[in-house]
């Protein structure tokens, strides 16, 4: 079953110097349980593809279905709820909330869903599953290493049991050894049934995926 469906999707950014076509007639399906790498050079349309997959943006034309919902017709609130309930985001810069401890960062998406009472128990479970030491749960992000922060970010992305994880250069800010550890973790999550989509320009990432989508000049290669 496809968790993401793109049907002849075009995205155009109107600029004063003229329209920029970021995606040009892209069609693709990503099924549940897949580990997909999306690769392409800078300016190829990777980020636009990622933003639309993440319901952060909508297409100019064509249809996009995320977890069965057609995002082109959804308002901001509906898109936000779609992200909250169905998508787990992992960023290159980790993007943890600096005011919250590791465990609170993981709890936060559950609190947004109104599952406050079970949030702490579930957050601890997920943090344990991503391999973060228990003594670090109450640490603030600035007290954690890059690898530890990314593990917390993965836990945060997983805590609401999303339909897929959307990872934007997840190892881009990590050294090779830590990056490998993170990719192994994502691979393990995928083995457990989680759909993983990694946007990267690092060819080594493709070793972990079972499908690679290449994009050049806004078109699938």
């Amino acid at each position, binding site marked *: 079953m496809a968790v993401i469906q793109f049907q002849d999707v075009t995205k155009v950014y109107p600029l004063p110097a003229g329209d920029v076509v970021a995606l040009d007639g892209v069609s693709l399906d990503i099924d549940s349980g897949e580990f997909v790498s999306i690769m392409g050079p800078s300016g190829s349309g990777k980020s636009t593809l990622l933003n639309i997959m*993440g319901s952060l943006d909508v297409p100019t034309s064509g249809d996009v279905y995320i977890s069965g919902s057609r995002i082109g017709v959804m308002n901001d609130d509906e898109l936000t709820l779609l992200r909250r309930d169905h998508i787990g985001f992992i960023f290159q810069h980790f993007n943890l909330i600096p*005011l*919250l401890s590791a465990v609170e960062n993981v709890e936060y998406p559950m*609190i947004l869903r109104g599952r406050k009472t079970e949030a702490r128990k579930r957050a601890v479970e997920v943090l344990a599953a991503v391999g973060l030491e228990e003594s670090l749960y109450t640490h603030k992000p600035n007290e954690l290493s890059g690898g530890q922060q990314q593990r917390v970010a993965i836990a945060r992305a997983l805590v609401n049991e999303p339909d897929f994880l959307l990872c934007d250069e997840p190892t881009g800010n990590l050294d090779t050894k830590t990056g490998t550890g993170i990719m192994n973790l994502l691979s393990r999550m995928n083995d457990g049934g989680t759909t993983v989509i990694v946007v990267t320009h690092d060819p080594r990432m493709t070793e972990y995926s079972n499908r690679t989508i290449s994009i050049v000049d806004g078109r699938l290669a």
Partner: protein
Amino acid sequence: MTFFDLARRNTERHMFRSALAIIGIVIGVVAIASMGVLGNSINLMVGDVVSDVGDTIIVSPAVGGGGIFGGGGASTGLSERQVEDIRRAIGTNRAIPVITGADRMMVGATTGGVMIYAMHAEDIPYLLEKESGAYLKETAAACMIGKGLADSWKDEGLKLGSRIRIGDETLRVVGILEERGMSFDVNPDHAIVVPHRWYSDRYETDEYDQVIVKVRNVNDIDAVKDAIDERMNRRDDVVNVMDTRRILESITSMYESVTLFLMGIGAISLLVAGVSILNVMMMSVTERTREIGVLRSIGTRRNELMRIFIYEALILGTIGAVVGGILSFGGGYLMTGVFLGDSTYLFNPTSLLYIAFGMSFGVGTSVLCGLYPAWKAAKLNPIQALRHE
């Protein structure tokens, strides 16, 4: 952890900046509340000092009046006939005609000037309360003295039963009046009250300076006023008819205007503080643009994000208002004590209401000034916010 916790932690993150914003609110709240308390205390004091408000109408000769009833334009008082007309106009309510004069009095070997009120003996209990002794009889050569006069002439031997000489006549003090405070009709605290007959015999006058009308039902004040006015001023303005309640209302209205003006100045300082909150929060929105992008991307709705920022403004405003309220209470206590000599006015509910008002205004201004930054944060495009460095 809730949205409120997030807001609280963010105010703590920039403690110094938050403290400065709070100080602004504190100053504004103190300015509004203290000015309000002071103005209200002055109003209360005036209300306390003026004791005869409510059921009293004062009828006095119109300036240059007299008319046909007064028997000519030269008359300066109210004749017995005019008093009778007033009595007819007011029905069952009581008219108390009063003559006001002054003379020199001698107690023992000491002489001094004194104000004299002459009234019909049967009217006195309806107007003045006695503290000790007895009320006057119309035929007696006696007087009642005000409490203030009794106190200030105590060393000269003035007391119940002592004798006062006025000219070649002697009056025996048969009663001491209760302290009455300042009034619009008579102020007997430092005066003597004598029977009308004694006064008219001695000073050969048959005209009154005013007629005090005590109205049984305060709701009838306007009707009684109108009745007097209609009867007495049908052709010419013979008498002035004053309602003490209205006089006090115009005085309190004047003080209220002054209070409002002073509070307005305080409100300006609070608005300046509000602008500082707006500034602090706009800086916060700019600094946290990326964080806002993260919050939005992981599923925080616009209204939830707005709540976080409004809570921040609410926290700053509430702390400022509470501290300001406490300081206003202290400041109000000091100011009423220093300027009015009586700090108890501060504890009057209406004074406390001004502190509550100042605090509410402080919180309200803060939240209002937090709305725009909150709206701006909520409207940020998550993609652009995530790219923000």
